[in-house]
């Protein structure tokens, strides 16, 4: 069985919950190598997303993600607003008007989201950005879908890979984003954007019914 609009709405709710619960951890990660605003912005952004989908309830998963995208793009600011906004918009476009999403469509939507972040932010794998969580997540999702997993299996694989990817940013030297100004001194800290991506993908799996709470990505 595929995922419907209720999954998408639950994903957004659980995302907002995760951003709120991990607000201080994300601020702390950003404080070390950035400017201390990531947790605050993500929390504020997802609260606005919740308000938006409550005011105008979407009818398809794609419509829910599009509402999230427009809100994140217009309300969050910083780099995270346009980057996540683009990610959700590309995922929404990829899903189209389907009411029910199967494993393959889901994996392709995640790939579209990742491609959107790359197009906007121009970061590559290993630059110590959210791409380091997105790209392994997309690869794991595609492998799972091709191997016959159901949507839940695809999302669990993606979340797992995103967490591993986020943790793997610790030793990297940043080459994009604000942390890049630190040069070698950015090594030894986790990228806040990769950490928030892992939290969001874990929320997607939880919304699909996963009971796995994952390793600690923040």
């Amino acid at each position: 069985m595929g995922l419907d609009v209720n999954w998408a709405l639950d994903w957004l709710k659980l995302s907002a919950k995760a951003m709120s619960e991990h607000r201080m951890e994300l601020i702390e990660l950003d404080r070390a190598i950035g400017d201390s605003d990531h947790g605050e912005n993500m929390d504020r952004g997802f609260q606005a997303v919740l308000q938006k989908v409550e005011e105008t309830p979407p009818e398809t998963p794609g419509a829910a993600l599009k509402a999230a995208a427009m809100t994140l793009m217009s309300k969050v600011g910083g780099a995270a607003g346009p980057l996540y906004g683009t990610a959700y918009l590309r995922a929404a476009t990829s899903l189209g008007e389907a009411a029910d999403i199967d494993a393959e469509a889901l994996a392709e939507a995640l790939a579209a989201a990742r491609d959107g972040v790359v197009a906007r932010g121009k970061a590559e794998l290993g630059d110590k950005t959210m791409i380091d969580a997105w790209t392994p997540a997309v690869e794991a999702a595609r492998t799972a879908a091709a191997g016959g997993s159901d949507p839940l299996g695809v999302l669990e694989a993606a979340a797992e890979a995103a967490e591993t990817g986020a943790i793997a940013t610790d030793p990297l030297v940043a080459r994009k984003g604000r942390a890049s100004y630190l040069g070698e001194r950015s090594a030894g800290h986790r990228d806040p954007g990769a950490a928030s991506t892992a939290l969001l993908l874990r929320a997607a799996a939880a919304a699909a019914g996963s009971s796995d709470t994952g390793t600690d990505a923040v």
Partner: protein
Amino acid sequence: MKKLINDPRAVVDESVEGFGMAHADIVDVHPEPKFVVRKGAPVAGKVALVSGGGSGHEPLHAGFVGLGMLDAAVPGAVFTSPTPDQIIPATVAVDSGAGVVHIVKNYTGDVLNFETAAEMAQAEGVHVRSVLVNDDVAVEDSLYTAGRRGVGGTVMVEKIAGASAQRGDDLDTVTAIAERVVANVRTMGVALSGCTVPHAGTPSFELADDEIEIGIGIHGEPGRHRIAMESADAITDRLLEPVLEDLALASGEKVLLFVNGMGGTPQSELYIVYRRAVQVLAERGVTVERSLVGNYVTSLEMQGCSVSVLRLDDELTRLWDAPVHTAALRWGA
């Protein structure tokens, strides 16, 4: 954390509201979405200048809205770029039909949000040009970073391009003059302390009593390296060297020298830095034709300063001297 605030989440709202009340003769404040416009905007036939960025750098940018400088400023949350839903209406509000120049400091968030807003404002029929300010020589290797940041030199870009627009130059000319300033201004900064973002509650970085951070930006982010505290003269030499090297100034050239406080350093210390900088420039045969000393591009309550040098030509000097009437800069008007 001790701050003169009521609620960390209301800092920008309440501060901008107060700014509007204090300077009601110069600006109008639009509360939602938040932006500040020059009184009487749009000015018929004039190219408009719009800038913006995270809050916490006051008086940048709202303090530079007014005659001869910016037509609109768009404040984001503290150290967070503003959003397209603020930038677009600000752009539309000040466009007289002659077009709008976005002056954007080179930070990933500012660039992404202004880029999106420029595209959408274009779709609404406004001619928008964007000028990226990237004067910070502390960022050494642009290939492996997000590129040089826009810092103190932004004031020179906004003042000089503002004067160009005020005298009636067209969109291409104002854009070209702004880009000429960008090409000829370089900046380097130092922090003696970190600063505390109100919603974070703890300092952006901690420095021991005998440590300073060289090559900082303006968002409380740490710099390139940390060294032991030195005398004002030694620090000034350290800041100026990469600036002068990058500008490749020749003997006989004229410059504008800008010593900018980061928010927590007294004016008296800024003059000590200024004094040494003039000496160093004189030793190289460079004449300081114009000066600016004070807290203009700040990083909340951070202690420290930045030194900017702008290579002047006769036209840039004339435009710098042209009348300006804003909350933070005023002469000749």
